[in-house]
């Protein structure tokens, strides 16, 4: 039965012509037989023929209904719809081109975002059975810090538990200078690549025998990224030597691009964990105390929950023995995607919204275009309806046409997204300040998911721009349209108003955002951080044994005019202390600085003095003006004594921080308040305690002669000779500009989007109004013949614009304001609200005025054309 059924369908499908011929034969046989009968009853052949035909009714309709019974109707219809669609599209190439371009642009922009998101959320590493890979972690502790494992704990877990088929240690983010260039390195246990089951693209992976401190030659494996960055994809890289922190390492292999070490971004190279001391000299001799991550492959068939329970039990047992608290274990999937996909989505949501607005505006334009075309196609549709086509059939036909265009738009969108991504990277990368390090941005390559996204996007857009016009176009009276009457009042008027309102609202929202960012960027350019930033540079010293040599090198450098110690440096949050004066007891942030600090940064001492040269460890303090007023409200602070002790509960507390030299300090000076950099949220503290460049952990802040960027490069060259693994060198100019840089980035993004939005809106508005004027030519002619002046007519056309534009402006501004309020209510508002003036009235006003002006301009041309109509000519046309 099933087989027969499919045979029937298959025959109809495979030989549609035969099925058609059979149907045709069957129906014409009926007519002939009926005619024959009527002739036998004595009628003339012509009469008989006509009568038979009349009795039968429409053969086309009957044939259509027969086809519908066949079960192949869907396929049949689709094929017919498609051929018809292609013909219609070819007949109106300009309109089709407009639709494809508009929707393609919008789809392309959204795809740019998806291509980025794709890499974070969906692109998993090419590792066999990747769903078995998990990281063993402990939840964050009270101070929100990860508690890591150590090598002995790993060994114990390996010995005493059996949930993993294989497990390895990992120590990531070990940044080190390789041949003088900063590279990201991940250290791995020697068995890692075996557990992962991946092979090298060239050479070999790391082996267990490499992870041995007595191995004759330290080795590394490059990632695809590292191979590109350091060796420019040299095919003969295997076997070459690289110098890591002064020691030669041999490159034994290169991994394929599809393996990123279960990370979103691959490190530049992997090295065995036995080389830890070379990469991180701090750990020399204390390798067992280094915090490591544990990654394992679950035994086949074991669920993550069951494994977690077993590990938890094991951990509880162990910690019972060593009395440690909060023993809990978490298993996090490791697939090379973002571990918190939801957070990433939330982060991307506003961007998707902004980019999606362009797509929406484009769809609205196209919908308007299709509404207009629907009216001009009324005759065609009317004829098809009266020939017996059902309304759903015609709607389907119209949708097929639109879907075909949307798919073409998806192809265009793909090209747009590639050009936009490459173009943006090419435009933005050179503007990144060089001292932020060698930032390597991975290419956001497209894969099949981008394709699926585009096709889904095309489907959704089709619904958006085509469904409503298709329903409108088929809501007509076939008889009247057959007579050639165009039904002018098919009521698309309200739909148009809504569409234009939506477009104006979206444009307003984007333009207001862009104006707000611009104003904030301009304002931030004039903000004075309160210290000298033009020629000051921060030098981080991370390797204490090399400190003396580095300070020596800095002190003897002719480019350096002045230098001062500072802890913590300007990028880190200052340390809190409990302060007690005769007046009050409070918590306040303090900082340890050299006596020259105020001079290097040009911070005036308003009263008293700075530290003397011999006071680098003396119990004296300098207070900021505000702090002095707070601590000594009634009397002069100079000469007063205060008690101070590092706050043991402070979140910025560190084990290796420099100690305060005393408990009671005498105030010797008062300095001007310093605003600091808003973007780093590290306002300068109000209490300064003396320190010297010899004090461990301090960074050095120097004032240089000449261009700070040149000086930075020069210092980098000189200091890496002493400590190849040294920390960052950062010009304060970059830090001061950072805020403006990000604001500028936001401004340009929203400006491009806003301009696109407004252009699309205006072109839509223009074409709709022109179309309406054309449609109402006769009516306008009558009005003018009856005495309406051209001013009346102009007002008539303009009034049609006023309502949707007004609605749109109102909605857009309201939305922007609501978002601003929402933003202020979030916890991040503290920083954002200070930097970005989200409710800047000038930005709002400017955007609104711009939109009104441009919309008026778009309306002016059709209005003028309407007012210049000659009533006699228009009336004669009919």
């Amino acid at each position, binding site marked *: 039965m099933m087989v027969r059924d499919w045979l029937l369908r298959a025959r109809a499908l495979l030989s549609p012509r035969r099925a058609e011929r059979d149907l045709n034969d069957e*129906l014409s046989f009926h007519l002939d037989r009926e005619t024959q009968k009527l002739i036998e009853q004595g009628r003339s052949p012509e009469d008989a023929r006509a009568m038979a035909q009349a009795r039968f009714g429409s053969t086309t*309709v009957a044939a259509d209904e027969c086809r519908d019974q066949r079960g192949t109707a869907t396929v049949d219809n689709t094929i017919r719809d498609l051929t018809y669609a292609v013909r219609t599209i070819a007949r109106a190439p300009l309109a089709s081109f407009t639709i494809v371009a508009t929707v393609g642009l919008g789809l392309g922009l959204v795809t740019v975002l998806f291509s980025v998101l794709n890499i974070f959320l969906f692109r998993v590493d090419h590792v066999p059975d990747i769903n078995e890979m998990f990281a063993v972690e402990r939840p964050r502790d009270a101070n929100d810090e990860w508690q890591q494992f150590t090598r002995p704990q790993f060994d114990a877990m390996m010995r005493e538990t059996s949930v993993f088929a294989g497990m390895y240690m990992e120590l990531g983010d070990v940044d080190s200078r390789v041949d003088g260039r900063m590279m990201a390195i991940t250290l791995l246990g020697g068995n890692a690549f075996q557990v992962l089951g991946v092979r090298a693209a060239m050479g070999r992976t790391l082996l267990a025998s490499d992870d041995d401190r007595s191995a004759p030659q330290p080795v590394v494996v490059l990632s695809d990224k590292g191979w590109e960055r350091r060796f420019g994809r040299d095919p003969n890289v295997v076997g070459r030597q690289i110098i890591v922190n002064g020691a030669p390492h041999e490159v034994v292999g290169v991994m394929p691009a599809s393996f990123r070490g279960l990370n979103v971004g691959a490190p530049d190279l992997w090295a065995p964990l036995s080389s830890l001391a070379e990469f991180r000299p701090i750990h020399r001799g204390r390798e067992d105390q280094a915090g490591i991550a544990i990654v394992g492959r679950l035994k086949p068939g074991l669920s993550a929950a069951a494994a977690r329970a077993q590990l938890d039990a094991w951990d509880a047992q162990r910690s019972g023995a060593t009395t440690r608290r909060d023993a809990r274990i978490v298993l996090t999937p490791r697939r090379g995607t973002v571990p918190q996909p939801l957070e990433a989505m939330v982060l991307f949501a506003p961007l998707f919204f902004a980019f999606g607005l362009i797509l929406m505006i484009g769809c609205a334009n196209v919908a308007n275009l299709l509404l207009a075309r629907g009216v001009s196609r009324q005759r065609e549709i009317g004829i098809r309806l009266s020939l017996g086509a059902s309304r759903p059939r015609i709607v389907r036909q119209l949708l097929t046409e639109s879907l075909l265009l949307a798919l073409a738009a998806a192809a265009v969108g793909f090209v747009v997204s590639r050009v936009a991504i490459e173009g943006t990277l090419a435009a933005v990368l050179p503007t990144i300040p060089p001292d932020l390090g060698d930032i390597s941005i991975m290419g956001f390559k497209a894969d099949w998911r981008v394709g699926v996204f585009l096709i889904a996007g095309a489907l959704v857009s089709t619904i958006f721009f085509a469904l409503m016009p298709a329903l409108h176009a088929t809501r007509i009276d076939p008889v009247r349209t057959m007579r050639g009457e165009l039904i002018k009042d098919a009521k698309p008027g309200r739909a148009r108003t809504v569409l234009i309102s939506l477009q104006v609202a979206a444009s307003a929202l984007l333009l207001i955002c862009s104006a707000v960012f611009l104003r904030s960027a301009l304002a931030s350019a004039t903000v004075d951080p309160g210290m000298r930033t033009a020629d000051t540079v921060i030098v981080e010293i991370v390797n204490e044994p090399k400190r003396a040599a580095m300070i020596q090198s800095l002190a003897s450098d002719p480019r350096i005019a002045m230098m001062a110690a500072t802890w913590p440096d300007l990028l880190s949050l200052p340390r809190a202390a409990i302060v007690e004066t005769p007046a009050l007891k409070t918590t306040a942030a303090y900082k340890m600085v050299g006596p020259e600090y105020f001079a290097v940064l040009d911070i005036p001492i308003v009263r008293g003095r700075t530290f003397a040269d011999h006071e680098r460890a003396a119990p004296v303090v300098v207070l900021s003006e505000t702090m002095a007023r707070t601590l000594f409200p009634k009397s002069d602070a100079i000469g007063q004594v205060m008690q101070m002790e590092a706050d043991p509960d402070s979140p910025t507390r560190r084990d290796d921080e420099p100690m305060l030299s005393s408990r009671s300090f005498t105030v010797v000076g008062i300095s001007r308040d310093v605003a600091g950099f808003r973007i780093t949220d590290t306002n300068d503290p109000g209490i300064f305690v003396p320190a010297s460049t010899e004090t461990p952990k301090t960074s050095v802040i120097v004032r240089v002669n000449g261009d700070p960027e040149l000086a930075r490069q020069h210092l980098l060259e000189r200091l890496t000779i002493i400590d190849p693994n040294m920390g960052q060198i950062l010009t304060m100019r970059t830090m001061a500009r950072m805020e403006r840089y990000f604001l500028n980035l936001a401004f340009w993004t929203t400006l491009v989007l806003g301009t696109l939005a407004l252009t699309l809106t205006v072109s839509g508005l223009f074409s709709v109004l022109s179309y309406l004027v054309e449609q109402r030519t006769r009516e306008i002619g009558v009005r003018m013949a009856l005495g309406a002046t051209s001013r009346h007519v102009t007002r008539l056309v303009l009034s049609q614009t006023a309502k949707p534009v007004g609605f749109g402006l109102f909605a857009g501004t309201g939305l922007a304001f609501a978002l601003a309020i929402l933003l202020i209510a979030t916890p991040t508002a503290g920083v954002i609200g200070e930097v970005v003036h989200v409710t800047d009235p000038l930005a709002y006003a400017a955007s609104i005025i711009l939109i009104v002006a441009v919309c008026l301009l778009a309306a002016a041309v059709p209005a003028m054309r309407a007012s210049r109509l000659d009533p006699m000519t228009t009336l004669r046309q009919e």
Partner: protein
Amino acid sequence: MPRATPDLLPGTLDLLILRTLQAEALHGWAISERIQQISEDVLRINQGSLYPALHRLEHQHWVEAEWAVSELGRRAKYYRLTAAGRRQLAVETREWQRMSHAIGRVMKLA
């Protein structure tokens, strides 16, 4: 000239077609002719709906079709009941009798 065709009760067209095909295989025109004759011109099948019905029955495997030479000397499509069609005819006949019996009682007694 052609009198207004009384509307068939919904669902009865299938029953009439199946019943007409019980004795022998017929082509479409003959089916409508037969129904008209036997009903003494009371039932006239709307010919435009006959063929969709036949195609539907064929699709449901209640009838099967075969091309054969007709009385006009050219090929025509003959429909024949299948085993499933006979079962369906039995079901629908019972259903019809039950219904007409019920309507008859209401007409007589209500």
